[in-house]
């Protein structure tokens, strides 16, 4: 596996599954413009085509035969093809598989996440914006110009909210090491806790911003695990959905307060009790980051 600088770096060589679709093609262009090495694409039946100069193949194996150094696949295939596309990428042992597609059936996600885990491969997503290491590589759909190179790592369940916060950090002169969009589904490959651990272990990251939202208890579990840590990087957080009513899905499949749990209040409380400041407004994050130095290591 070739994952340094947290998931993606300038050795990242990308395969785009579903490259000939509208989203696949658009984001291939955008990734290339950012400097990301998109080296091949796959759309069954479209072998021989080129998208932005990137050769298209019928199968993952053909793409790997073309460029054996492919180490990441990013998926734009329709939701009902995601399960099979992940199996295909996993059977070619691609170590990092980023699923951008939304509306993937949760039972499909459960199966592919399990399958990848037993092969030692990492899935990010589904329903996520991908991963960006500003200046190095962008694997996904983030608008690169809102990000800037720096020392703050980000983990987020939300796409546009990540862009919002990253752009406010950028305006405040605070650059980012890596921003990881883990996705808004109830079951995802790389978890909140796993993603934070990658940033903790990353020498390029000095502080961490986490962006949570209602639904599930990933934030609470993260808070509980960090409360025990002796040495930890300064962390600040934001939790979306304080005004959301219970029992209604707020856009993301995972953003739902159900059976009375998963509220923003609980998450905020758990994070604060673990010593992690929670911003009331997105714009407060840069201030909280600046003042976070002293509280942690």
């Amino acid at each position, binding site marked *: 596996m070739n994952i340094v600088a947290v998931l993606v770096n300038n050795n990242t060589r990308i395969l785009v599954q579903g490259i000939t679709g*509208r*989203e696949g093609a*658009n*984001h291939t262009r955008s990734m290339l413009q950012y400097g990301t090495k998109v080296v091949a694409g796959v759309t069954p039946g479209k072998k021989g085509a080129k998208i932005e100069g990137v050769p298209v193949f019928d199968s993952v194996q053909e793409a790997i035969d073309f460029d054996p150094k492919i180490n990441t696949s990013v998926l734009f295939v329709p*939701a*009902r093809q995601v399960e099979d596309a992940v199996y295909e990428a996993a059977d070619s042992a691609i170590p990092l598989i980023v699923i951008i597609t939304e*509306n*993937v*059936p*949760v*039972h*499909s996600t*459960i*199966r592919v*996440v*399990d*399958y990848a885990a037993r092969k030692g491969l990492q899935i990010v997503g589904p329903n996520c914006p991908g991963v960006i290491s500003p200046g190095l590589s962008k694997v996904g*759909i*983030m*608008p690169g110009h*809102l990000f800037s190179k720096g020392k703050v790592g980000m983990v987020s*369940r*939300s*796409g*546009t*909210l*990540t*862009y*919002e916060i990253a*752009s406010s950090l950028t305006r405040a002169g605070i650059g980012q090491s890596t921003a990881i969009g883990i996705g*808004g589904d*109830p*079951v995802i490959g790389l978890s909140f806790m796993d993603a934070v651990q990658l940033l903790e272990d990353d020498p390029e990251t000095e502080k961490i911003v986490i*962006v949570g*939202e*209602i639904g*599930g*208890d*990933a934030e609470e*579990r993260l808070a509980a695990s960090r409360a025990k840590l002796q040495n930890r990087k300064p962390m600040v957080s934001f939790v*979306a*959905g*304080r*005004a*959301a*009513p219970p029992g209604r*899905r*707020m*856009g*993301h*499949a*995972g*953003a739902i307060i159900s*059976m*009375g749990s998963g509220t*923003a209040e609980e998450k905020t409380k758990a994070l604060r009790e673990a010593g992690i400041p929670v911003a*009331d*407004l*997105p*714009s407060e994050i840069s201030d909280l980051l600046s003042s976070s130095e002293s509280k942690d290591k």
Partner: protein
Amino acid sequence: MKIHEHTAKDLFEAEGIAVPKRYVANTTSEAEEAALKIAGAVVVKAQILVAGRGKAGAILKANGKEETSKAARQLLGAIFRGATVSSVLVEEQLSISKEFYLGFAIERASKKAIMIASEEGGVDLEETARSRPTAILRILLDPLLGLRTYQARLAGKALNIPTPALASFIGICQRMYKIFVENDCELLESNPLALTKSSQLVALDARMVIDDNASYKHPEHGEGTEELTPRESSAKQMGLSFVELDGDVGIIGNGAGLVMATLDLVAHHGAKAANFLDVGGGAQAEQVKAAVQLIVKLPNVKVILLNIMGGITRCDEVAMGVVQAFTETGSKLPIVSRLVGTREEEGQRILSEAGIEMTKSMELAAKKAVSLLK
């Protein structure tokens, strides 16, 4: 998408799980007929998609034609927790010696399906979880192998299922798991799963929730619009992620997290949002237009707050959609907008030319929108 009790019970029955004798009745006379066919004590249950029907008084006991008729009359057309009863299930009453809980759900933390079982059934599982968490058994299921026989057997033992009923319990677990996976359920439960005085295990209730993302695989279950308001239904068909709320600030944004944060900002400034509306990534003018038209028509809305952080979404497309919607509807509602990202200059120009005010940040936009309410 929630599934009605009677549909879930039909699936249970087809799979070989014992359920009480029962008839769906849409009218009082159908309920009377059902009572005559069952010929004994019955339960009349409102077929609505809300939980806690018993507490809400939506489940009545009756005996004979007269009482059943009366119960059906009382329920049909009534509204419980916002849901109108259009049919009832008339079901035989059984002699029960014990009630269990058996369910299947998705567990986020383990990224797997789990089986949940408890010896204390017939009561709210959440309450049991709070008062006696050790009374609840959680069994992790291998995503590929599913529920194994030995797991079901151990659960049966832990629940003190009597030995003569143990094989039946194992079978019910396996069959419910099959229904759970084959129907792409988020939740499938029987509460209570009852042990009758004649030592039979019978699913007295059945609750089923299908993953909306998989509903295309299960057209037999309909489109899941029954729980939605008419506006939510039509928004769903337009591919908009829309939830009606009870405030007066109409919200349009892109991205679930950003829209949630926008609602939070409105609340932060002391007002309430009239809705959640995510136009999604890469929305075209047409879609934005539909979204604005939807919000404009919400009865409570006094001001509209537009918050776009364009990545995939092009600001010019958004702006065109907004302008078209206002032009076509002739709406005079005030609108506060924040529009940044891809093609933001073009977008902002289009909005300005239409006389729509721009703000520099989502926070200022929210503050301004709330101030316009006064």
